């Protein structure tokens, strides 16, 4: 029997030379810090320096019974649920709207996309300007001009929660929209037309045809935006700094405040404890990442 001669493997023609640069960057800037975070979480390292001691799981014991952390965790869950839900519904709605051949839709798409491109820190500052409770605040000035009472957007704990959620919805809607718009454009038009001739009204087409067809994409979008929202801290930092009180402090923000600052910077500067919080967030993210992979994202009904 003739044997097929295997082509000689040449390292330089294989995939590794091409992968190496990216891998190197991933290792240095992702894998190493991630691993190091696990190490730090077991120490009492501080910003102020001094020899770090190995203290076992003490940091985890501490945050597990820390009311500040628990409040933040609870708020983060509420915040994530509402923000992800709100931005999904809004994003899908906008995508459906902008998928229609309406005048100037490119302009709308671009405008909406801007909110995603701007960094979260800036988004926080923009909303702070909008929500400023003095007459300088855009919303309150508007209310004032039509004879309405100003609202304590950021100083009332309940309103602050609502404000933070609204700002984050505003920021993440564009992400869902672009995702869904991409999906809508891959939908086979004839299938939707078949649904129309079958007698499906617009909402029935959405519910029985479009959503099922976009299911893998919807799962992906939801999981991505859950991960992004759950880990948010920049928006909180620039919009409310977690206040009033601890009303809008997320786990991410709590971690930031715990780990950095110190020495008059407002934070605690406890890097070890902050790292432990980071590890807890990593675990939650990991759960969602596994969900993402298992959600049948990669299986489709199409052939």
């Amino acid at each position: 029997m003739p044997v097929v001669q295997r082509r000689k493997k040449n390292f330089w023609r294989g995939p590794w030379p091409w992968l190496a640069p990216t891998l190197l960057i991933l290792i240095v800037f992702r894998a190493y810090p991630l691993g190091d975070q696990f190490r730090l979480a077991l120490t009492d390292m501080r910003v102020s320096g001094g020899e770090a001691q190995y203290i076992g799981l003490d940091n985890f014991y501490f945050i597990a019974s820390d009311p500040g952390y628990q409040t933040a965790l609870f708020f983060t869950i509420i915040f994530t649920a509402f923000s992800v839900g709100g931005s999904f519904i809004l994003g899908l709605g906008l995508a459906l709207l902008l998928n229609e051949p309406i005048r100037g839709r490119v302009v709308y798409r671009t405008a909406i996309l801007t909110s995603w491109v701007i960094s979260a820190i800036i988004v926080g500052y923009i909303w702070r300007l909008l929500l400023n409770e003095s007459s300088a605040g855009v919303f309150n000035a508007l209310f004032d001009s039509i004879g309405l009472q100003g609202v304590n957007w950021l100083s009332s704990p309940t309103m602050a929660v609502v404000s933070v959620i609204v700002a984050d919805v505003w920021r993440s809607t564009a992400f869902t929209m672009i995702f869904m718009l991409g999906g809508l454009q891959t939908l086979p038009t004839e299938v939707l037309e078949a649904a129309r001739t079958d007698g499906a009204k617009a909402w029935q087409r959405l519910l029985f045809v479009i959503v099922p067809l976009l299911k893998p994409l919807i799962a992906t979008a939801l999981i991505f935006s859950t991960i992004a929202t759950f880990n948010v801290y920049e928006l909180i930092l620039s919009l409310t700094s977690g206040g009033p009180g601890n009303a809008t402090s997320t786990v991410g923000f709590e971690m930031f405040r715990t780990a950095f600052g110190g020495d008059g910077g407002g934070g605690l500067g406890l890097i070890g404890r902050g790292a432990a919080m980071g590890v807890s967030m990593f675990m939650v993210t990991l759960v969602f990442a596994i969900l993402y992979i298992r959600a049948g994202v990669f299986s489709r009904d199409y052939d």
Partner: protein
Amino acid sequence: MSELNIDGLGKRFGKVEVIPPLDLHVPNGSFTVLVGPSGCGKSTLLRMIAGLEDPDCGILELGGRDVTLAEPADRGIAMVFQSYALYPHMTVEKNIEFGLRLARVPASERKEKIAKAAEALQLEALLQRKPAALSGGQRQRVAIGRAIVRDPKLFLFDEPLSNLDAALRAQMRVELAELHKRLGTTMIYVTHDQVEAMTLADRIVVMNQGRIEQIGSPLELYEAPASLFVAEFIGAPKMNILGGKFAEELGAAKVGLRPEHLFVNGQSSEKWTAKVRLVERLGPETIVYARVEDVGDLIIRAESSLEIPGDSELSVSPDLSNVHCFDGHGSRIEKELS
């Protein structure tokens, strides 16, 4: 009654007038085929009939009711698409059932209808499969099943067979013809394949650049094409179109001669010497591509036993009683009755 009446229906996309206002009557129970070259507006016309595209002008009447602006679902039509357009996430059964569900047909009746359609289309074994697990022909049958359970007054087909291979296409052609015979429902069928048109239709509508060139039965179009366009479009191999002195003598700008109306070694007054360029041995017949000095290129349909002489020259004579004459605008010149 489910006859279709189209009166002055027109459509433009932006500046382009895809369909200049046209009239068309489709009698009740007919199998009407719209045929024409790619881009001539067949699909657009069909989609306007279906209600998937709004016309810019004109009236569309189905069964005596004005449906010009009615929703597709309210027209009593069913459409079969070229891509089958099955719902990929639903089983075959659910695909067929979807329209019935939306119309709030009771469950027992739905079951009955699905069973009947499945039997007629040999889909029983496939009901629980999803479209991805079906072959092209099976998918097309599901699409047809989905259409027939709705008991439409009018079936619309947009090139339903063009994604199938030749053998399956021939088989589905027969099945469609049988379906029409059994149901007796009016059908409008779009294709750019003239063989499909000839075999399926009782009426063919030949379209060209959004206009209707001719309407007639397959044989009428074959035997008396109203224009050069129809003459060239209908029939395979194509009709020979000859100009020059030969046409002049017959008082025409162009003369059309079907390949079967050219005789090798015939006994006609007119005799040409044809230089053979290519011979296709098809089995029951032989197609000869040849060139005649001062006349032009010819396609000749000959006996399968035809022998090509060593010098590749054949004596060919045209059947002068079967020439089609056209004037300078490409319109048919009727021969005077003698």
